[in-house]
């Protein structure tokens, strides 16, 4: 397994890590999904953003320079001591997209969580992952009382590539979430065979 690392001197095994992104509109259940399968309560850390990354034109000089932070939720699943999978909930709003490049870099793939009552909320995420050629699937979160739709209808409504899987799920149920992740990784394996060069687009320098 040559992606693992070992220190030839100390024979120290450093765990291999992988990540999956959980995207979708505000309030669609991303944190619920992460919490349903994570071995830890979803944790939060923050990314520091400078004015430059926000894109605000600040002409008033360095003394007015401010920094804002965005909370990132993440969960963790340790399969064996030497492989850990991280699940990152992506910030829900378009203004935080520059963070997605970092999150998507080297990712196994992404789950776009959708609510059929507000399907338009996930257009942006679908566009993003299609444009980036990141393997993704759409998981329709079947809330109580939400109108049920066939996956085919969702596929048409989102104008998805026919190869992009659409699955139904209950983001509160561990087994359901597990099936979603398995479907995603299978899809990523198929995609990776079709396009062996894909490993996540590199980050811009700096």
């Amino acid at each position, binding site marked *: *397994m*040559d*992606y693992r*690392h070992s220190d030839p001197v100390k024979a*120290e095994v*450093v*765990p*291999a*890590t*992988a*990540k999956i992104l959980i995207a979708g509109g*505000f309030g669609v259940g991303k944190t619920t999904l992460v919490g349903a*399968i994570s071995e830890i309560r979803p*944790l939060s*850390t*923050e*990314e*520091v*953003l*400078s004015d430059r990354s*926000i894109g*605000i034109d600040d002409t008033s000089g360095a003394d007015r*320079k*401010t*920094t*804002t*932070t*965005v*909370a*990132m939720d*993440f969960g963790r*699943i340790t*399969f064996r001591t030497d*492989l*850990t*999978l*991280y699940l*990152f909930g992506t*910030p829900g*709003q378009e203004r935080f997209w520059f963070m997605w490049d*970092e*999150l998507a*870099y*080297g990712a*196994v793939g992404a789950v776009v969580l959708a609510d059929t009552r507000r399907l338009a909320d996930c257009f942006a995420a679908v566009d993003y992952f299609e444009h980036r050629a990141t393997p993704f699937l759409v998981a329709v979160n079947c809330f109580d009382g939400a109108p049920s739709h066939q996956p085919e209808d969702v596929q048409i409504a989102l104008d998805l590539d026919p190869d992009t899987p659409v699955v139904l799920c209950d983001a509160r149920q561990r087994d359901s979430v*597990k099936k979603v*992740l*398995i479907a995603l*990784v299978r899809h*990523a*394996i198929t995609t*990776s*065979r079709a396009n*062996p*060069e*894909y*490993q*996540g687009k590199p980050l811009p*320098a*700096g």
Partner: protein
Amino acid sequence: MSAPRDRWLDREAGPIVRPYAVTKGRTAPAPGSYVGLIDVVTAVAGARLPTDARLNRDHRRLLSYCHQPITVVDLASDIDLPVGVVRVLLSDLRQYGALRVVATPRGPATHERLLRDVLDGLQTL
């Protein structure tokens, strides 16, 4: 419930603060010293720091959490500092030779093997 779209500084954006004093105002590591969110860091045992190394309290606190290999996001969460700040401090420590950063190598063959291991792992959950 939808967040207001015309304001940057709402609840989801988090608090607006001055650049962190602990990083001397730096909001990003030096170019070329990128540390990924799930990269694993580990303290170098018995490292001799350069004489001009300036470690502050947070540098030392970070190091004390890195005796066992730990990912950058876990570290940031454990010590309750924003991951952006942690990455700046980690790049300092790496420069001083006090810390090793191990990025999971990316390549078509290793990537597919990693995918298979993730699949196996999920199936046996």
